[in-house]
């Protein structure tokens, strides 16, 4: 591993809400170029971990670095897909406008998006097959389409690292395949992709790296080596058996 760069490095991270720790002393290194799943039960702290990496939540101890520097210096290297339920889909705006928000980070304060940003947004929408819906009001999109809009927005951020919170939530099989293909494309292009994922059956098929999380980090590493019943049982508490097809 010494010769491989670390995209994300987390040291001794503890995060609490109202003084109640929800992440406890986490050490985690994500090598550059992996497609990594974060798995763990509801309330395990998966979303919290992602938000802490992004500086949205401040940890009470520990540190996060992106390619060796603090996140605040590396904002433009990281793109984010939040959990779909975290925004108000009745907000008065169109799909294209939401995707354009992906370009706001590189624009910085005050500067307004122009033709260049619009072009980036349209290209991203094309990649996720949402071009036809660009002028749709976002409340009039189906759940899967909303998820694709979020994905397009992350693509418009044009980053080196993509952090995604349950991008497969509530999407049908076709959309799921479309999304995973885009994620694999990103990996092929040398990007690092971290995905909070709930469907354990598909982990070996979709991902090459996995982190087990439940308040503490249980294990992290290549799917082939550590995705086993032992770690699943440690993470989910019950005696877990999945057919791991290798």
């Amino acid at each position, binding site marked *: 591993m010494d010769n491989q760069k670390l995209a994300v490095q987390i040291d001794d991270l503890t995060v609490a809400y109202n003084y109640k720790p929800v992440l406890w002393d986490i050490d985690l290194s994500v090598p550059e170029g992996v497609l990594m799943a974060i798995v763990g039960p509801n309330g395990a702290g998966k979303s919290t971990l992602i938000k802490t990496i992004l500086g949205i939540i401040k940890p009470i101890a520990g540190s996060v670095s992106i390619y060796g520097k603090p996140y605040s210096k590396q*904002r433009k290297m990281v793109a984010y897909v939040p959990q779909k339920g975290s925004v108000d889909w009745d907000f008065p705006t169109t799909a294209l406008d939401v995707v354009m928000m992906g370009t706001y980070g590189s624009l910085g304060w005050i500067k307004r998006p122009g033709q260049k940003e619009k072009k980036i947004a349209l290209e991203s929408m094309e990649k996720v097959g949402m071009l036809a819906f660009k002028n749709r009001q976002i409340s009039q999109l189906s759940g899967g389409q909303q998820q694709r809009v979020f994905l397009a927005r992350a693509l418009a951020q044009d980053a080196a690292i993509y952090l995604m919170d349950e991008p497969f939530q509530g999407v049908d099989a076709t959309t799921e395949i479309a999304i995973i293909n885009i994620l694999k494309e990103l990996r092929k292009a040398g990007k690092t992709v971290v995905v909070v994922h709930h469907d354990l059956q598909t982990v070996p098929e979709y991902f090459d790296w996995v982190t087990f999380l439940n308040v503490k980090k249980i294990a992290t590493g290549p799917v082939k080596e550590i995705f086993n019943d032992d770690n699943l049982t440690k993470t989910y508490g019950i005696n877990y058996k999945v057919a791991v097809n290798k």
Partner: protein
Amino acid sequence: MSNPQIEIQLIAALVAMACAIPGVFLVLRKMALISDAISHAILPGIVIGFFITQDLNSPLLILLAALTGVITVVLVEFIQKTGLVKEDTAIGLVFPVLFSIGVILIAKNANDVHLDIDAVLLGELAFAPFDRLMVRGTDWGPKSLWVMGSILLITISLLLLFFKELKVSTFDAGLSSAIGISPVIMHYGLMSISSITVVGAFDAVGAILVVALMIAPAATAYLLTEDLKKMIGLSLLFGVSSAISGYWLANILDASISGSIATTLGVLFLAVYLFAPKKGLISVLYRQKQQKIEVSLITFLLHLNRHEEESERHINHLQEHINWHEVRARTVLNLAEKNNLVEIKNNVVSLTEKGLTFTEKSLEYIINNKDEKIEPMKEDFFLFRG
């Protein structure tokens, strides 16, 4: 129109515009209540400011009182963060306390303070033209006109500069924070502007109308458009037109101007709430009824599709078999016939070619759980078109 009449309307229109802009973002952030809290909690700030400056329109007083507004927000958030109570409870705890401190301050110093609580709450626009800005003996017009004009100018400049930031931090605070557009800064910026607007306007129109002018135009516009820029435009339009027509209503009824404007805002909201084309109550009810008929229609067609035997498809049997109220059965049958989905021979109903395709397609979509495809399909088959 006399000069004071024009001045009053001008002041009312400026207040309406200055309130409408922050109002849109308060409504979208589901923070309508906080404007109410600010409008009451600034009272002690105003009283203390008045002790110091002896002038209700002094910029220092406005800043002091606005600071009280921001402190209110901080207090509310602090109480909420303890996790012991919800936000609305926290608001309900903070603002009565601050408001009563203001009331006590006024009562204790009744002799020195020419402030009256009725005027603070209800305001009286009719008096606004009397307080004039005099510079070296020249009359520059009513003070409120200058105060509100400046506040409006600041608000519009900030809106134009930070439109993108306001939008992204309102829609998705997480992303906003991640890309370095601090939602905390945007939040307190919005709270400061709201507080300044409330303080600037309360002297002219009273606290209650300020809240109405912030929330009602935005809430009305929200029912009519799905575009943020249009929502702001409509809010400005509704605010100003309610202010002007409220003024004339008061003239005709010989009533309080602030009261009439607030009433106009309420009536306008109610009218839009009932009649708005998409989100209005009537069109929502109509759509629900239509959907009910559509579901019945599809059920009915599926029944025809599954039953070859004529007895099952006899008009008199249908009612009993599908178990509908007679009226609905007739509506559905008429709709199906009008769209050439079925034909009736000797009181026996059968699917037409078109009806058959329609039924099979719906069945396919229902089975595959692709409900969204049924919508455009209805268009293809010209359902519900005259």
